[in-house]
């Protein structure tokens, strides 16, 4: 009787050990497997960013893109040339936009206007927009901070 009791306790212990070990393996492997699966968001590169394909941008338009944690603006001139600037207005950090009618970069907050070289030409902005370098590699457009 005692013997039987003892052996059932032993079995029980073995079960716990077995399941515990299994649980432990899972609790170690689960994070590792989740870690190995790459996240959907492409890796954030702050120095340069892929904005899109040449065909996505019509001449005479401007597009806001995310550059690190600040917005940038990519402008395609009517000549087809690309230019990129920081889209943060130098006056009060609003996001600037391209105005087709003005052929200029315009800030909606206080009507600040920059020309297509990023120079502040009217309104309150005290400084030109920071210029970025545009690299067209094949069909794809990259914007990088070194200008």
């Amino acid at each position, binding site marked *: 009787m005692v013997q039987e009791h003892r052996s059932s306790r032993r079995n029980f212990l073995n079960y716990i050990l077995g399941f515990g070990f299994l649980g432990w393996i899972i609790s170690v492997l689960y994070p590792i497997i989740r870690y190995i699966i*790459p996240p959907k968001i492409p890796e954030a590169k702050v120095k340069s960013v892929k904005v899109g394909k040449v065909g996505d941008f019509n001449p005479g338009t401007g597009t806001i893109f995310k550059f690190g944690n600040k917005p940038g603006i990519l402008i395609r001139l009517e000549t087809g040339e690309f230019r990129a600037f920081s889209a943060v207005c130098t006056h009060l950090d609003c996001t600037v936009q391209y105005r087709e009618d003005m052929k200029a970069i315009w800030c909606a907050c206080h009507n600040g206007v920059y020309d297509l070289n990023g120079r502040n030409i009217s309104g309150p902005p005290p400084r030109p927009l920071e210029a970025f370098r545009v690299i067209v590699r094949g069909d794809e457009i990259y914007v990088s901070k070194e200008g």
Partner: protein
Amino acid sequence: MAKFGERLFNWFDERYKIRGFIEFMSHKSVPQHRHSIWYYFGGVSLFLFIIQVVTGILLLLYYRVGEDSSYESVQFIVSKVKFGWLIRSIHSWSANLMILAVFIHMFSVYFTKAYRKPRELTWVTGFLLLILSLTFGFSGYLLPWNELAFFATKVGTEIIGSIPVIGKELLIIVRGGEDVTGATLSRFFGLHVAILPGIFTVILFIHLLFVQIQGMSEPPEWEKLPPEKRKYIPFFPNFLLRDLLLWLIILNILAVLAVFFPWDLGKKADPFAPAPAGIKPEWYFLFMYQTLKLLPPKVLFIEGEFFGVLIFTVAGILWMLVPFWDVKTEKGYRNRLINYIGLFVLIYMITMTILGYALS
């Protein structure tokens, strides 16, 4: 099922004669006495090293070395990758705990005089592993390329420059240039993930091989005991299970530390920014750093800093060679001097570390 296992075992045994090895292992035993607890710290260090290898490999999946990508990729790991924060925190915490475990392991071996004949080379390889671990820590600290790491590395490597004649050249070699830059980062990365792991694994293998061949050291007092009074427990499964138990507890501690005290990433390093206040190396270098700080600019007619480096180098070499000049213990006498030296070293290191934290 059992039959399959048996067949598999036979298949291997036929080819690799593992039965002999099992036989050897089952007869292996570990002495049991009031200082037995210290036997476990070698195993703990090993376990933490294994964790370092696993988490390190995992980090390598996303880490990209470079002035413009190191910080960003670590930030990416901790914020965007699922459980990335956990992997990084465990890697950092486990590194620190490993150094701590290695130190405890070393001092316990020292005070129990387990280094004595015939284990001199086990001690020497162990000491080399300690140095390698410290180098691991130093090189790994820079890799996130954050402000603290940048300046700590700058201050840390500057000491090399104090060596006369070759200091300047050596500094350039270590930094990959005159200053701590992206070149330093690449160097440290290479060191951390390729060179050190290679050397470490070889020496670790030798170290473990020595331990396996010679078994655990018995305390010197046992030599006077009659054999029947010496107690042993079998290595397998008793000792190994205890090891496992401790490992699991350590793993638990690591998980708690990683979740409740996640390792801060801080600000990105800016070489042109002024050094933030309170730049300190990691705690395990603090006693050396503090000593160098307290030294006068000139000792005799050598530069204070170089004097410090010289003293630490000589002390380190003497420490490594302890089994060779401690002739008394080898002959079976008690060598109190060794205890005093060890105690002095231990107290010195602790005091200087505390001073390093208190004086800033």
